[in-house]
């Protein structure tokens, strides 16, 4: 019961700046939730939690790392409004509070044995990193693994160093795109000046055996989905994470309806087939 309403205390354990306005926050839960089964640290990639800064408010944030048993949580947060600005002026050791996990994540169980094409635009990399790490943990269960990731400029690419390391792996193919070239910070794996959909060109895809987890802004969805469909990917295997205004995260505040679905409990990850007919879903 408490998980749905009372945020649990946590402490900021580490802050790592990833780009001009985005940092990776590692939180440490200070208390287990009273009902042991659910803890904000155990989740499915694609799920989110509600992060509170006392005196400022609460914001929905996607998990960006792996579930943990010791109560450690990684979140990648962009400075955007009240809560996120307050967070960006916080320092290691400061207290925050969390409740979650909420929503439906990516359907990992469906992915066994399939090829996966992960496509991230901008901050969409946050939940997809969580997914990618989970896939790599059980790498042998899945087929070919490809990550396409686009950002505005080279210095806006999140997790640059991690990506550079991952790029050396044989069992994962990574393609990066930036809207405009810029000073290239060191350690960046090769990236092309291109739009995200351009990265699809020349990819070898077996449409019937591929699932596409997608995460990015609406504009990215609108430009990516038609070419994906054209490649023959079935709409029910395109999984995208939607952003909506959220207050409660538990399906009662009435803010996040997409058609007659609620983003917070029916999503935030939806199969495209469920959204196709809905006005303004993307």
């Amino acid at each position, binding site marked *: 019961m408490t998980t749905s309403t009372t945020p649990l205390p946590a402490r900021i354990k580490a802050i790592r700046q990833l780009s001009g306005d985005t940092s990776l926050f590692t939180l440490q839960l200070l208390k287990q939730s009273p009902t042991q089964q659910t803890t904000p640290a155990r989740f499915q990639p694609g799920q989110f939690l509600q992060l509170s*800064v006392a*005196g*400022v*408010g609460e914001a929905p944030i996607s998990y960006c790392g792996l579930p943990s048993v010791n109560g450690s949580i990684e979140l990648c947060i962009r400075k955007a409004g*009240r*809560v996120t*600005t*307050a967070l960006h*002026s916080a320092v290691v050791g400061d207290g925050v509070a969390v409740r979650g996990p909420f929503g439906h994540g990516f359907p990992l169980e469906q992915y066994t044995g399939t090829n996966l094409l992960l496509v991230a635009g901008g901050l969409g990399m946050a939940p997809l990193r969580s997914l990618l790490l989970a896939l790599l943990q059980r790498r042998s269960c899945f087929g070919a693994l490809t990550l396409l990731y686009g950002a505005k400029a080279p210095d806006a690419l999140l997790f640059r160093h991690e990506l550079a390391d991952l790029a050396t792996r044989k069992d994962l193919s990574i393609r990066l795109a930036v809207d405009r070239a810029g000073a290239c910070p060191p350690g960046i794996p090769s990236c092309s000046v291109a739009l995200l959909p351009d990265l699809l060109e020349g990819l070898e895809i077996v449409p019937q055996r591929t699932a596409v987890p997608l995460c990015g802004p609406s504009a990215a969805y609108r430009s990516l989905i038609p070419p994906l469909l054209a490649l023959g990917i079935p709409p029910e295997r395109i999984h995208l994470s939607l952003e909506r205004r959220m207050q409660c995260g538990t399906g009662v505040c009435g803010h996040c309806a997409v058609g007659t679905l609620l983003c917070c409990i029916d999503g935030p990850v939806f199969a495209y087939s469920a959204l196709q007919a809905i006005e303004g879903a993307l």
Partner: protein
Amino acid sequence: MKRPRLAIAGLSGCSGCQLALLNCEAELSLLLEQVECQFFPLAISPVELTGRYDLALVEGCCTSRHDTFLLRELRKRSSRLIALGTCAAWGGVAAMGNDRPRSRLRRQVYGNQPIPADGVPRPVSTVVTVDATVHGCPPEPAELLALLADLLHDTLPLQRSFPVCCDCRMRENLCLLQERGMLCLGLLTAGGCDARCPSLGVPCEGCRGPVPEANVTEALTIYRQKGFDAPTVLGRLRRFCPEWQYGSGA
């Protein structure tokens, strides 16, 4: 924790927004402990701008050269600048006569006697960028205190967008416009005052300025049905904000 530095300044106005703060008698001593109020001519001497400010609160509209100078100076020195109250946000009562030539208004008051040059009263945001706005003539004490609490939490107030009617209906008031045929501007006015006036049976005079997406066209139709012609209503609307967007809210 370092105490945030605060500057509170008045341009052309009645000092009401600043007084609203001094009227928070019960909270004043706590406030004085929490923030360093370095520039506040109404209540603190000496008057001098020094260093940088975490927050500048600016009351009043920008009329004279002196107003403009002070405003620019505050903007340069402050991380955040808040337009405090309706004059700062919209021009307020002083801008009510902006539909007439300024020289004519001046002649009406001073005849042909020479007076120092002045300008046309205008909102603060036409001169400098504004980080947030607190509405009201005067602002609600609770909103002022929330703003200062936000300062202590390193953030800015949420800018909301509902009309006074929303406050009014939440208080379960009988609608003065519909049931009493009074010229209540609650439909078009930014809420947040807890419907102070209608709750006492006094129609809203629009002291908080336009609500975002105000549907003036439709409101004029409704007011006309209640017997108020457009010039009367527009005159009322201009009491606190000289320039309204008339387009339908759609």
